[in-house]
């Protein structure tokens, strides 16, 4: 096997990766806006904003704002305070007929 054959194998391996990525990969969480995220129940995304008001510490419930405000819920206790700017990994859900975000993870 000569150098050009190894390069051909390398090329094929990369090509398989590119094809798999293009045809089958669908990102779970992509950056979006709060308004787009809450458009439909079950939407997942990463949203940036500010903690407007902390309603409860455990489970953590807070009002999250960026252009519009929405209630966010995390079953786990989050170390956040009013005024914190953060990214939320969240899923849109409807609770008691009100749109809110279920928070999976927080990045400051």
């Amino acid at each position, binding site marked *: *096997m*000569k*150098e050009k054959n*190894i*390069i051909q*194998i*390398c*090329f*094929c*391996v*990369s*090509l*398989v*990766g*590119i094809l*798999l*990525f293009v045809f*089958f*990969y*669908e*990102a*779970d*969480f992509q950056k979006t806006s709060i308004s787009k995220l809450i458009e439909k129940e079950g939407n997942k995304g*990463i949203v940036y904003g500010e903690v407007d008001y902390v309603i409860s510490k455990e489970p953590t419930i807070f009002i999250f704002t960026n252009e519009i405000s929405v209630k966010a819920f995390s079953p786990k206790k989050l170390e956040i305070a009013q005024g914190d700017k953060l*990214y939320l*990994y969240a899923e849109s859900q409807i609770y008691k007929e009100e749109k809110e975000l279920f928070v*999976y*993870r927080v*990045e400051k």
Partner: protein
Amino acid sequence: MILFLLIGIILGIIAGLIPGLHSNNISKIIIFLPFFGTEILVLIIALGITQSFVDFIPSILLGAPDSETYESILPGHKLFLKGRAHEAIALTVFGGILSVAIAILFLPFFIEFIKINTSYFPTIIPVVLLTTLFILVFGEKTRNKKILILFVIIASGTQGLLFKEQIFPLITGYFGLPVLILSKPKEKVKQETKFDISLKNIKESLTGTIGGAIVSIFPGIGNNLAAAIIRTFRQKIKTKNYLVLLGSINTSNFIFSIPVLFFLNKARNGTVIALKDSIFFTNNELFLSITIILIVSGIAGIITLVISKKLLKFSFDFRKIEKIIIFFLIFLVFIFNGFFGLIALFFSTSLGLLTNLVGVKRSSCLASLIIPTLLFYLFF
């Protein structure tokens, strides 16, 4: 995402080419950057995979050590002196790229295996580590060598306990400086860049991939020790086959460390530590990891061959370069680990020189990692 892929590849090349600058060190810096999720996942995987290919270049061309590739220094240099350094590097690329294909095919079985057996690992790990030490001792043929290697294991184990946070000076002292200090002045060797690799080497790649999978599960057993153990069982392994084996273990270890992180939440590879708190563990992220591994490994393989060819065109004064590397490594140890690191380097280099001079397996020095891990699993 493409930007992070490119940055990862560039950082991987830098980490691979500069002796002593390991991707672990770069990933420690990345943790503090404001990236997370898929961004950091793509960056770290591109970095780790590229580095797993490129880091054979300094080991083979200069004899400069790296914690993941030091076993390649001797076989690599053997081919270097025959004017076939490029072939030596191509053999590691061949092993690496084949192991990517094999590892991806085996991945579903590997994931099932670690999911089912997670609870047994704390019991199995000390048994595997103890067996490894026994293999090292009884793998030596004469009684004198058995006693000598036992001494090295005890001494390096003690150093591992005394210098707990000094892995870089220890690895440099055991595997890097002794080779550079003891290397004979090399005459300029005309390097041939054409080669023909036998397809029989595929079976070495399969063995290496299995070795990489085992290394990714068990702490303390590095790529090089796994290669040394395989060599113990196969006394007549040829230099070329051994380089394919090393290339396979190095790359597959990184690949398998990703599902180990996803499903066991254990970072067995220094590079993936940066991912531990930065990504969201979903099947989609795992699928993304696999596609990035495939894309980057092909690119990294080609890059490694191109860089090797370009470097061999220059005429180096290797004796001068070796001296520069010796001082550079001592300087890096001082920068990363301070004065205490220099003390660790002094003792580890002494032990490394001893293993080289008396001719016992250098891998026995890895007892400095195995013994502290063993004690942790037995008593804590």
